[in-house]
């Protein structure tokens, strides 16, 4: 039998104004288990807490009921008070007689009657409470960052800076991501490579950071503080630790006609290649789809010219397992395919290109060495049309475009237009826009400069059709402000393609049990208050995998994610919420219903031996709850057919006893 103390709070007149606190304390005195009952003006005050402490000691209380404000307000306070007096904090229950009683009812008899019933319910519950101890789980002090773009790089650097080990897994042969392909950055027009490559070098040189390039995460197990990831290191047929990155193989390889993905197929690379000059790690990779040696067994030129002896045609994919305390997703984005938008003739003319392709055309390290030349004939274009919102804000057909605004296009198009006019004042530049969206520091000023200082023609309206005729592109569009349909003979058309999450994100989300929205962007734990955490504990979000964003936002978020990771890794042990599910193994059928509904994957099954009445042993499959992962929603308890699964702190019999207390 419990020895329960009841403390009725007046909350000044907040409660006492509508509830006869004296009568409540008196009425609850005779409830089963109650050995002490009192009332006080402010239970949450120091004096009030002292009364509770003293009563706990004096009356050897095993349980406490506080009739006061909402538990959302002071449950923690009173639990701490109880703990200070040596009582298990989970032996405290609150009867909410303020928000849910005195404040919503007007007359004293009604309020008092209800307060007594609420008090009885809390007492009934405490009678069945058991002391709970929060579990602990150790933390592996290493983080995994998935994706090696600017988001992943910044997160890794910040975590490493705090002294923790970080691994970056990047599926491409080099880190750098999309930012490495970009020419200049808005609104300052810094050279992207100039600000990115030093960071890449920092990553390479940081002792705390390991880079797994040309690698993918294929499996993740475990939970916050204790993840185990399987990483597939794809065979690059070059010994990473031997290759010096001299590049001689990439010059001598006879297979010259491989589309260069770094330049988006606008020029060619060899079958053995280093993506770009500042690649990290600066190691060659052999493309098995194009290497003659790997395909036919005849060639071997690269092995012959490699003085370091780094080429290894027999290399196989390698799988390694590593332990991590936290995982950061930084899988980034890609422009969507333009196949479904061929009214813009992307597939019909080489001179219709995407904005990212335009970046490469403008870039000194790009296919044209920075000269603006048309892909079709290498001529200098004189009239350029930019089309905004291609596939963004598109709700028409399923899977055609994206319903959201891609956010970055307005600004990078202003940048393209401005740079083009700056370098080539003889070009006419038209930008067709629906809206120009430039919220951001110095953003609108930047766009206005393109119009006012650089003479870019911004036309409100959309391009309806692009028709390649001869060596020209006939652009038919509407000018909504002039209420005219206009036709422009353009030399080059640049499409601001919508961006979408990388295709690898969806399977990764499944592995991590992290949730995604319908567009395959990762969902945050709370859109306002926990924007860089996934709802899955220990999984954090960095960059465009969460939604379209530009570089400064990405870097800011990368830092925020890193600080969350650091906060986690700084702990030696994690304290778990003790109000978690637990399964009574004797009753468990092993039917898997609970595991099916668990949103956290907290339930696994183990084979367990049971002694039978006839002294034989029997091995049965039973559920086992990982207390570090369980968040205590209780969904499993309801689907459990045998009632083997129960929730600590909100047990079946506790809730039943509350029902009974209220109903009679």
């Amino acid at each position, binding site marked *: 039998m419990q020895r329960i103390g009841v403390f009725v709070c007046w909350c000044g007149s907040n409660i006492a104004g509508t509830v006869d606190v004296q009568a409540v304390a008196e009425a609850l005195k005779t409830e089963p288990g109650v050995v002490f009952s009192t009332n006080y003006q402010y239970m949450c005050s120091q004096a009030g807490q002292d009364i509770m402490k003293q009563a706990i000691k004096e009356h050897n209380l095993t349980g406490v009921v506080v009739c006061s404000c909402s538990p959302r307000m002071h449950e923690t306070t009173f639990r701490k008070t109880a703990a200070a007096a040596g009582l298990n904090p989970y032996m405290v229950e609150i009867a909410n007689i303020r928000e849910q009683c005195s404040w919503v009812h007007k007359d004293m008899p009604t309020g008092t009657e209800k307060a007594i019933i609420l008090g009885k319910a809390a007492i009934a519950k405490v009678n069945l409470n058991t002391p709970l101890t929060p579990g602990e789980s150790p933390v592996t002090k290493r983080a995994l960052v998935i994706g090696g773009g600017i988001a992943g790089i910044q997160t890794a650097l910040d975590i490493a800076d705090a002294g923790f080990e970080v691994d970056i897994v990047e599926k491409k042969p080099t880190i750098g991501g999309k930012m490495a392909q970009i020419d200049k950055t808005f609104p300052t027009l810094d050279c992207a490579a100039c600000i990115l490559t030093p960071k890449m070098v920092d990553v390479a040189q940081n002792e705390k950071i390991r880079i797994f390039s040309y690698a993918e995460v294929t499996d993740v197990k475990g939970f916050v503080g204790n993840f185990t990831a399987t990483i597939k290191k794809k065979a690059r047929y070059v010994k990473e630790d031997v290759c010096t990155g001299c590049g001689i193989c990439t010059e001598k390889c006879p297979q010259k006609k491989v589309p260069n993905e770094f330049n988006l197929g606008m020029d060619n690379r060899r079958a053995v290649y280093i993506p770009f000059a500042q690649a990290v790690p600066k190691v060659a990779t052999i493309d098995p789809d194009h290497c003659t040696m790997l395909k036919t067994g005849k060639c071997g030129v690269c092995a012959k010219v490699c003085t370091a002896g780094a080429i290894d045609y027999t290399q196989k994919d390698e799988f390694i397992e590593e332990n991590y305390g936290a995982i950061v997703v930084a899988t980034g984005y890609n422009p969507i395919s333009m196949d479904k938008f061929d009214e813009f003739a992307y597939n019909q003319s080489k001179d219709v290109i995407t904005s990212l392709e335009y970046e490469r055309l403008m870039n000194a390290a790009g296919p044209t060495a920075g000269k603006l030349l048309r892909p079709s004939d290498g001529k200098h274009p004189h009239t350029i049309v930019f089309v905004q919102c291609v596939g963004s804000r598109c709700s028409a057909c399923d899977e055609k475009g994206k319903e959201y605004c891609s956010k970055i296009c307005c600004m990078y198009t202003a940048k393209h237009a401005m740079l083009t006019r700056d370098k080539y004042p003889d070009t006419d530049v038209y930008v067709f826009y629906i809206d120009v969206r430039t919220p951001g520091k110095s953003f609108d000023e930047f766009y206005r400069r393109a119009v006012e200082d650089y003479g870019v023609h911004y036309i409100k309206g959309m391009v309806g059709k692009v028709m390649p005729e001869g060596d020209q592109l006939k652009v038919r569009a*509407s000018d909504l402000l002039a209420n005219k349909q206009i036709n422009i003979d353009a030399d080059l058309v640049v499409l601001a393609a919508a961006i979408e999450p990388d295709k690898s994100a969806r399977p990764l989300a499944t592995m991590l049990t992290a949730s995604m929205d319908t567009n395959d962007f990762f969902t945050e734990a709370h859109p306002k208050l926990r924007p860089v955490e996934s709802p899955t504990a220990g999984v954090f979000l960095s960059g465009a995998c969460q939604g379209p964003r530009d570089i400064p936002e990405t870097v800011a978020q990368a830092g925020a994610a890193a600080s969350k990771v650091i906060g986690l890794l700084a702990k030696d042990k994690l304290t778990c919420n003790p109000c978690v599910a637990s399964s009574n193994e004797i009753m468990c059928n092993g039917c898997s219903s609970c595991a099916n509904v668990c949103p956290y994957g907290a339930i696994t099954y183990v084979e367990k031996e049971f002694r039978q009445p006839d002294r034989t042993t029997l091995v049965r499959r039973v559920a086992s709850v990982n207390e570090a992962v369980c968040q205590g929603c209780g969904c499993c308890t309801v689907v459990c057919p045998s009632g083997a699964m129960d929730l600590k702190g909100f047990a079946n019999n506790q809730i039943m006893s509350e029902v009974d207390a209220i109903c009679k």
Partner: protein
Amino acid sequence: MENKNLREEIIRRSGVNPLKCMRCGKCSGTCPAYDEMEYHPHQFVYMVETGDIEPLMNSKSLYKCLTCFACVDRCPRGVEPAKLIESVRLSVIRQQGNNHLNTDTIPDIIDEEMPQQAIVTALRKYNK
């Protein structure tokens, strides 16, 4: 309000929701009959949305739409302006004596090679 009823009827009959329009003007940027029209496809959508239907009903633009569906296919929001135009046109020609094509004049319009297809389609589009 009569206009409000008319607006509702036009919208219901077309099966189109003009509120989905984000005013990008792509329909008008793609329309092959743009130059013959007094009110252009994007204006049709906007004017139906705001209930400014009278001018549309009195406009020759109604009979210039080719029903080529270019605007329907290219609209990023699935607004389908051609269906709205058809709906407004039906509101006109379904009224007594409002046929657009005078059947007596058909012999003057057609020639030897004119296919039946043109006549039946025009009758369907222009007459009750």
